[in-house]
């Protein structure tokens, strides 16, 4: 799965949490632009774990801010699982 596809999945899952959000893009800052609180972010991670069938430890997302950065974490964890 390439960057764009992972980004698209994350945006889809974000819209499940906040159906009224508009213009979520690759550069969107998940916490600052969408005002997601820490629990909502963790719930998003849980949904992504289920979608990609991987474990995303919370410390791995500590430094991620944008949708694109989160997609990067998902991809590297997918690679680790396959390795």
């Amino acid at each position, binding site marked *: 799965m390439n960057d764009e596809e992972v980004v698209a999945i994350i945006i889809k899952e974000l819209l499940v949490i906040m159906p009224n959000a508009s213009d979520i893009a690759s550069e969107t800052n998940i916490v600052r632009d969408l005002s997601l*609180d*820490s*629990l*909502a972010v*963790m*719930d998003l*991670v*849980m949904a992504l*774990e*289920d979608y990609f*069938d*991987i*474990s*995303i*430890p*919370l*410390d*791995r997302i500590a430094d991620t801010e944008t949708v694109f950065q989160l997609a990067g974490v998902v991809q590297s964890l997918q690679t*680790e*699982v396959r390795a």
Partner: protein
Amino acid sequence: MSILKKFEELRGAYNHVKEAGNDPFSVCFDEILSPTEGVVSGKKTILLGTNNYLGLTFDKQSIETAVSALRENGTGTTGSRIANGSYGWHARLESNLASFYGRDHAMVFTTGYQANLGIIATLAGRDDHLVIDADSHACIYDACKLTPAPVTRFKHNDPNDLRTRLGRIKNNGGNIIVVTEGIFSMLGDKAPLKEIVEVTKEFGAYLIVDEAHSMGVLGKHGRGLAEECGVEDDVDFILGTFSKSLGAIGGFCVSNIADFDLLKVACRPYMFTASLPSSVVASVVTALEKVEKGELLREKLMSNARYLHSKMIAAGFSVGPDVSPVVALRLQSSEMAISFWNALLNEGLYVNLALPPATPANMSLLRCSVSSSHSKIQIDKAVALFTKIGIEFGVIEPELLAQFG
């Protein structure tokens, strides 16, 4: 720029809550008259939000032992146990706790928060993996920040989800540690502990259960949910607090694990904080004896819990799934919950206002915690106030009440 500018949003939210009248985060009790009654702004107020499950805060014997320990050992220990040493009361409480739980070891902390923070963060090392219930208390989340171990959450009270998530964890040669709670503090629901034990065993993981709200409350002898579910042998570490059913303050961990004494020189929230004063420890020692023989108190507590829970349902309120001493009413919005809470306090009833993000699934809750010391008259009065205000605010419908009430 002010160093507190980062809390601008919190300032807005806090002011918003305070604008409705009283400040729910700093209610001042002029007097505490009994485990179930206090005085707020000159008004006698029923206390239905203080986790005083067995009403032991005014237990005569506990007060007497506390007073004599206070006279014998002074007001404080002025330091930590590793630096200033332990007092006889600390050792006695640890020994009594171990035998109460039928375990080899016990360790006393200064608060329940520190017990969770310390034990969870110390047990989970870099190669280990912590797996916690998504609705865990803040102290468990804070432990996750302190540990170098990766952390995964599983869906609240869902053993199958736990299995799925454990299955995804890559083993780095370390241990997996699963954390859950006996009674969850916000909604009063219990963990499906038998099933969680089964899943934990399948993966050879360690299991920690925080029995903060269930110690003294559940199980024939008050040993909590693990006793009630008959799985005590399968829980590796029990954590708990003295600030609820035992009516004082402090926290603890009990376990059968070998080398337990190492925790006392490895666990920083134990090592680098002042220990409990003897007066507090002495009251806990006495209260623990009451808890152990407290079958009648527990029967009264559960009968009060069933009564309050069923009366709230009959009145048309939306309450948590399990009957337990925590009865949480779900309101449509935080504005409604704030106004409702203020109206209750002004009428002489104190409950907890619980708002997101401190609540599961962004719920706005009025959280009641019942005690064995509450009289039926007090509970009836509380339900009547809830009903009156609920109708005034349009939360419940009077027609429904007439039909079923």
